[in-house]
């Protein structure tokens, strides 16, 4: 009795969800901003604390680890700065996804909203945070006089592909963690672990080339989309290929998950 509706109904609803989510970007953008304002209301510095926090972390880890890893601070600290900026955004999106629909339970139970709108709202939230955190990164690059070329502009399309990937990851994590509450814990631990297993606080040149921690690490490729043009001044062709492949497969997978399970989501809250 559950599956007596034709599949194309499920497809149509999932398509509506995806399209409406994107069409109403102004609305979800506003709510993303509203979420940030709510978070930092009645605090004096507000989100600037995030920028401060990142700056302190970069200096703290940077100075210490450049000694541990025997890499010159001049090179390591700018590397760390851009890596941490990107990783903080990515891990925050993933961790927030584990309770994304739960925090929107009130809305979901009261009115018809596209589930993808919550994903977009989360992306906007984290983009705003990342925008605040760019400041310490820029300061680091200026301070160390890091050589920048025009190739750095290729980071922009790279960032767009990175965000597109975060969209489907956020969607699928949200759905799975809504159904199986334990998976949220697993995702959080996996994200913490990934920080160490991915070249973020260590440089890729320090392990033998072709190691699986780099080659088969999707986080590495996603970060390289933006990091390579900015830090290394080179175009990461291989990472682009991998990232677009991940994007296509990931979008298809999350679309299929949405089509199959969208009708059940409200019962899982």
């Amino acid at each position: 009795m559950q599956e007596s509706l034709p599949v194309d109904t499920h497809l149509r609803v999932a398509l509506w969800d995806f399209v409406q989510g994107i069409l109403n970007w102004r609305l979800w953008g506003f709510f993303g901003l509203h979420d940030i304002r709510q978070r930092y209301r009645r605090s004096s510095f507000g989100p600037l604390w995030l920028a401060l926090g990142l700056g302190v972390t970069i200096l703290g880890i940077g100075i210490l680890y450049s000694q541990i890893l025997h890499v010159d601070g001049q090179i390591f600290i700018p590397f760390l700065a851009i890596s941490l900026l990107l990783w903080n955004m990515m891990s925050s999106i993933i961790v927030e996804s584990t309770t994304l629909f739960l925090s929107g339970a009130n809305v979901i139970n009261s009115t018809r909203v596209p589930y993808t709108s919550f994903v977009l709202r989360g992306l906007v939230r984290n983009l705003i945070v990342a925008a605040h955190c760019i400041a310490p990164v820029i300061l680091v690059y200026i301070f160390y006089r890091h050589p920048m070329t025009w190739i750095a502009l290729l980071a922009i399309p790279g960032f767009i592909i990175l965000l597109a990937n975060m969209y489907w990851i956020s969607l699928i994590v949200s759905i799975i963690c809504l159904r199986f509450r334990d998976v949220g814990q697993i995702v959080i631990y996996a994200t913490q672990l990934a920080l160490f297993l991915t070249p973020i606080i260590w440089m890729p040149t320090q392990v033998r080339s072709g190691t699986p921690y780099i080659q088969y690490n999707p986080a590495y490729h996603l970060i390289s989309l933006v990091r390579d043009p900015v830090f290394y001044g080179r175009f990461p062709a291989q990472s682009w290929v991998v990232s677009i492949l991940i994007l296509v497969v990931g979008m298809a997978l999350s679309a299929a998950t949405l089509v199959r399970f969208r009708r059940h989501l409200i019962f899982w809250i």
Partner: protein
Amino acid sequence: MSIEVNGLSLDLPIYAANARSLRKKIIPTSVGGSLFANASDTIFVRALQDLTFTIRDGERVALIGPNGAGKTTLLKALAGIYTPSAGTISIRGEVSAALNAALGIDSEVTGRENIYLLGYYRGLSKSRIEANMEEIIATADLGHFIDLPVNTYSAGMQGRLTFAVATAFDPDVLLMDEWLSAGDSAFVAKAHERTKQFVEKARIMVLASHSLAIVREFCTHCAYLSRGRLLAYGPAEEVIKRYEADVSTGA
């Protein structure tokens, strides 16, 4: 505008661990839908069973029935919050679901800013909200409190604010779960008039209510639901008589 419901059924799954033990005994009860287990061993509540009716332009339909009959569930299904398990719902017209009037309230910002928030959650654009801003503030009648944070309001004042926003816009198809009571006696008289105007602006209204007085005042038709089934659908007075007859015989 029209709403066509055909063979609508809705099963709500129960994921609670102790639902397993309920499987051993299917208890007929006077509230709620019927419980049963499907082949894969999940317990379901059949909240709505095979509903068929049509609502035409200009009709205002009340959903009446005992507790747990499926009134709110039907409203949610019409709103698109629940996907039917079987059957179809065809709605021509834009649906405005006023099921939870306080949806979107942020108690730490001012009443004025909350008007924007409440409007945005109803899918309204900034320009549309601003066009109606003065009218909303006048209706809410909160004086200078409109520019103070909502957490300084009493519950009644909050109710007036949400009521003013919810009734400010012209809906095509309006779905309401009964919440029309808010505020002190001075406000109630005003609210009554405003509700009347608002309801008449809607092309179609579906309202769940326990108050037969409200039903008689605002509604043209009634749907009498009990245990997930549609027992009667027709002009308000007829169906109300049937409902009252059932209540008095203790059915």
